[in-house]
């Protein structure tokens, strides 16, 4: 145990032992264990307050410890890691993995996002889930998720990271199917888990190749297993640098590993082709969508690739694939987002799209930009999701935006926080999303590290930015402007009111009442997140404006040192004119999106959307049905999978077992024939036997050789006979 810690200390001199690090994941785990095992009893005895006491306190305590750790990290010189080694997890041959946690700048940032936003969402959830009969189960799962996510980011080695990686998948499964009585929710959960497992297969394959590539010794004669397999993030960079240009099946191993890991990332972070589970995951309660399916879990893939940056810079092919897949996903999901009516589905596709941006960032080698977008996105997307949750509760679990409208007047806090977040995501320079997204796009444009020109992912991201602005403002206008519906009222009434102004709609209806603003436990959280969505702008102000590295870039730089020397089009300090131009383009396209959404949806009076829909009804249908990707997957992958399963089963039962049973029958018939011969032939010639008995006696005497082998052969034959006879009598 100590020797490994010692090695680590040698590799990086700036390691600070921080012996409370384990508390950060374990505190939520304790919360989960208490709520999970005794939750029902606590719930019955003390009500929801009892659960709150356990399950909301736990993540906040973790936040406090994390904060202490983070401050320690900030005080220490740049490049320091906090390290806490617990015990040897597995040590077999050259493979060693410890249960150990470490915090560097990147995982420190992640840890703060998870504990802070996670704890906020716990508070929000206490309002959102009020009155649910399985309140305790919800918080047990949510706490367990915090544990798994923290293990994912704090784990000191790839194997421990994988524990968190699948752990969050499990929690996601449990929470998507939280209302499992509706079998569709259960199915959505299952889909998420299985699709994630496809990704995990990639991760696992990558792990195997990486261990193999780094673990053995390579000589002229070939590969020899053995040597020390190191899996810690502290030692990997050096090993990767040493490994050089090994290949497997003719492909450089780091390309292969990189692609395999990226397959894992496409599963967890919902990228093409494995993004299909995320929109369905909206079946879960909205706080889950905010925490797991927007702010934290789905960014795990981005985190992992940023974490492995020292490996990816060796593989232009893997980088290109990541950037291209990210760009395609950003664009593809944005188009679908434009025509969805379910508010959570819009946000889900928006998440997929924004994750695509992050992958453009980490794909082109701008790791800190990807990580920064992860941070800003965590704030504004969590705020958007929680805002939508607030709306959904007010609308009594109605999620269709066509049945909403005019809520701004009745839910001011929800409205304004949603508004701020829309500014952030749409890319206006007064909130955080602009800074992170624009930096990613600029870095993509400026990149020469890919096999394709950098403007390709830039252009796709640019178009997607316009679409993002459009669909986000569309959701804002559809939800918060125009006439307000009454909940409990017949839907028809709300639509008849379409021409009535906000002022008038308050009068004249007896049935139903207007949606109400949510209690402070929920809106307060929205406010904090919205403030955060603006505030984090300041750590990422572009070089172009301030002529110095942004705070976040400087902070994360030690982790991404390896990426310093990636080739760019313009060198440091050059190309400002182009950068200004691109920035202006970005703002223009965002404004364009806002403008179109304004014309189409503000006040819900315009007929243009419907007309357009009728004009391009075919196209609309295809996009609205998500390009029929789900259907295509069902017809190919799922059908093929089940087909293989059923044909295997058929083969097993009919062919294999058929042979076994057939052998049994054959034995039986041989025995019948034997019996026939015995009765009619042998008995008939029994007298003959008597005649030759004397001569036979002489022959048999020869069998008694006194040699063990002869006897044993006889024994075997006897046993074989017993087999046949038992088969005869019992079968």
């Amino acid at each position, binding site marked *: 145990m100590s020797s490994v810690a010692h090695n680590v200390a040698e590799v990086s001199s700036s390691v600070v032992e921080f012996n409370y690090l384990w508390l950060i994941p374990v505190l939520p785990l304790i919360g989960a264990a208490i709520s999970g095992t005794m939750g029902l009893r606590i719930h019955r005895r003390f009500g929801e307050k009892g659960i709150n006491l356990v399950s909301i306190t736990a993540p906040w305590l973790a936040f406090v410890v994390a904060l202490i750790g983070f401050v320690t990290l900030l005080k220490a010189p740049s490049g320091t890691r906090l390290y806490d080694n617990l015990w040897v997890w597995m040590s077999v*041959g050259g493979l060693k993995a410890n249960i150990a946690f470490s915090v560097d700048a990147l995982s420190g940032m992640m840890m703060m996002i998870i504990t802070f936003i996670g704890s906020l969402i716990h508070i929000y959830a206490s309002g959102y889930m009020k009155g649910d009969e399985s309140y305790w189960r919800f918080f047990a799962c949510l706490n367990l998720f915090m544990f798994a996510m923290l293990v994912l980011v704090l784990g000191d080695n790839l194997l421990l990271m994988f524990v968190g990686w699948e752990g969050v998948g499990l929690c996601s499964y449990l929470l998507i199917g939280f209302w499992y009585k509706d079998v569709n929710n259960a199915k959505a959960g299952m889909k998420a888990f*299985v699709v994630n497992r496809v990704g995990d297969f990639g991760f696992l394959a990558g*792990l*195997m190749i990486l261990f193999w590539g780094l673990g053995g010794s390579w000589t002229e004669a070939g590969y020899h297993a053995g040597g020390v397999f190191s899996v810690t993030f502290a030692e990997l960079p050096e090993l990767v640098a040493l490994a050089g240009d090994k290949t497997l099946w003719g492909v450089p191993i780091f390309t292969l590993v990189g692609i395999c890991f990226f397959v894992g990332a496409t599963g967890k972070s919902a990228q093409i082709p494995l993004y299909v589970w995320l929109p369905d995951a909206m079946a879960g309660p909205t706080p889950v969508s905010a925490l797991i399916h927007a702010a934290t879990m789905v960014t795990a893939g981005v985190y992992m690739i940023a974490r492995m940056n020292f490996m990816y810079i060796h593989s232009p092919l893997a980088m290109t694939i990541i950037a291209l897949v990210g760009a395609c996903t950003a664009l593809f999901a944005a188009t679908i987002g434009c025509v969805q009516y379910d508010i959570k589905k819009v946000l889900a596709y928006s998440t997929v799209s924004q994750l695509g941006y992050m992958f453009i960032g980490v794909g082109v080698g701008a790791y800190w930009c990807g990580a920064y977008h992860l941070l800003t996105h965590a704030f504004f997307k969590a705020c958007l999701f929680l805002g939508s949750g607030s709306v959904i509760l007010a609308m009594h679990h109605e999620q269709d935006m066509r049945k909403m409208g005019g809520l701004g007047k009745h839910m001011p806090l929800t409205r304004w926080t949603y508004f701020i977040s829309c500014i952030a995501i749409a890319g206006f320079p007064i909130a955080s999303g602009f800074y992170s997204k624009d930096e990613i796009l600029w870095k993509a444009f400026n990149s020469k590290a890919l096999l394709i020109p950098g403007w390709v992912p830039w252009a796709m991201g640019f178009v997607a930015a316009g679409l993002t602005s459009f669909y986000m403002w569309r959701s804002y206008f559809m939800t918060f402007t125009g006439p307000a519906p009454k909940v409990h009222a017949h839907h028809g009434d709300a639509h008849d009111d379409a021409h009535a102004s906000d002022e008038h709609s308050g009068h004249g209806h007896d049935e139903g009442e207007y949606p109400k603003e949510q209690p402070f436990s929920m809106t307060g959280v929205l406010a904090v997140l919205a403030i955060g969505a603006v505030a984090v702008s300041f750590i990422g102000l572009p070089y172009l404006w301030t002529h110095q590295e942004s705070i976040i870039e400087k902070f994360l730089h030690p982790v991404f040192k390896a990426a310093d020397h990636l080739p760019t089009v313009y060198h440091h300090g050059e190309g400002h004119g182009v950068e200004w131009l691109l920035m202006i383009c970005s703002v223009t396209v965002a404004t364009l999106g806002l403008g179109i959404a304004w014309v189409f949806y503000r006040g819900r009076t315009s007929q243009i959307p419907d007309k357009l829909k009728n004009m391009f009804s075919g196209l609309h249908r295809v996009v609205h049905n998500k390009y029929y990707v789900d259907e295509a997957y069902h017809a190919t992958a799922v059908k093929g999978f089940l087909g293989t399963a059923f044909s295997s089963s058929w083969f097993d039962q009919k062919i294999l077992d058929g042979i076994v049973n057939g052998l049994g029958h054959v034995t039986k018939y041989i025995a019948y024939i034997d019996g026939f011969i015995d009765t009619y032939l042998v008995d008939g010639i029994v007298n003959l036997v008597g005649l030759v008995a004397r001569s036979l006696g002489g022959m048999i005497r020869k069998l008694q050789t006194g040699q063990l082998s002869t006897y044993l052969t006889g024994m075997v034959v006897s*046993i074989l006979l017993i087999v046949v006879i038992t088969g005869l009598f019992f079968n």
Partner: protein
Amino acid sequence: MNYPTTSTLLSWMIFTPLIGVGCIGLLLALKRLLGLGKNEMDNAARGVTLIFSAIPLILGFMLWRGFDPSNTGLQFVHHFVWIRAFNIEYFMGADGLSVTMVMLTVLISFIGVIASMPWGIAKDDDHHFSRKAVPGYMALILLLEAGMIGVFCAMDFFLFYVFWEVMLLPMYFLIGIWGGPRKEYAAIKFFLYTLAGSVLMLLAMIAIYLSSNPTTLVDGTYAAHTFNLIKLADPAIFAPAGTILGFAFSKVVFIGLFIAFAIKIPMFPFHTWLPDAHVEAPTPVSVILAGVLLKMGVYGILRINYSLLPDAAVWASTGIAIFGTINIVYAAFVCMAQKDLKKLIAYSSVSHMGFCLLGMAAFTPQGITGAVYQMFTHGIVSPALFLVAGVVYDRAHHRQIEGFGGLAKQMPEYTGIMGLAFMASLGLPGLCGFISEALCFIGAFPVFQVLTIISAISVVITAAYYLWTIQRMFLGNLNEKYAKLPDINWRERITLYPLCAIILVLGVYPMPILSLMNKTLHELIAPMASMM
């Protein structure tokens, strides 16, 4: 090495259950005299069995504590000449591999015994196996336990064979008498399959015996041939040469032994006895069958094939890995199509035992340790799975997955335990199954790249069939027929909670088991690894 007797602990572990059998026999004989009614007799038999299966468990802990993992030789040796005419010795000993398996055996046997108690079974359920011919059942369970411990400790081939057969008969009767509707078919199938394997083993054993060179017995007397497995592993005493029917001796013997053991694993295409046996067997018998008996196949290959015939093992390694891969992927697909919960779990056992084959074929430290750790973790997880299947069968009297629905509402604790067992079985990191699977993969990859990647596909299939099962049984609307099913009772908790605890602990802290066997196993594969 000659290994004189150092301890009789292992013999005590083996013969304690046999004393229990004797006690039950004595009680039966004195039944009239003591005036025992059926109930008293049954309870007496149950009590005796509980005691005499608990003692080996305690002795097992003593064995574990006393075992020195840094010593690669045999420990706790009990050794004397048994049948001098044929140079057969009574030779018991334990190395890291044996200790691991013995610990598993005594634990799972004890849990199986508890699961055989009728506590909490509805009073009117007279046909329940736990109320049928109790003394006979209990005696057979004890006999089975003795046979299993014996197989894992015997270091004399003949003794090994004797215990192997001793273990076969009780299983046949346990399935054939206390089983389900098609018990006769299942029992006969089990018996014939295993006996066919035994015949091959017997032939191979004799061939090996006859071609061994002269040596001495434990008391120093001359022996022309030997059954001593430790001595046979020494090339000076047994160096396979020559041919049988034109094929290399070592290869023929290896294949004979391998098939004998592969039937027990069970390896494709010899696995079809397992689903039938499991489906018909009563819950505790399934528990022991999956938990311990399946391990004997892999154990036998490691103990006999690998140590006696290293060159043939290297020759066969690719074949073993291919069959392992087929086991893993093919059986996982078959699982997907199952309608009976127990059959599904049975096929999942086939799939998971494939990891052992894959891992041990690579002759890498991670591979072999992964394979044996997989035996141990599967020995913990699959009993838990069969126990949870038994819970629902005891209540609903059927196991059709489609026949349930929404049970999570009605049986939350049961659902949680089943979820944990399923997750452990599908290799969720943090639970014990992951470590063994990951070690097998990491260990096998350097040697069998393509096969390992194909095997890794099973992570998707496994997740799919388990989650689909959960969805069909536990989620959705509650099937009104089962609106009154009670949650798990205390007997079931006693059996399941320890297993769940082990699943959790061994997932994050596997070193107690890993370090127990690391040295032994790495020594075992050293000759093969040097030949690769």
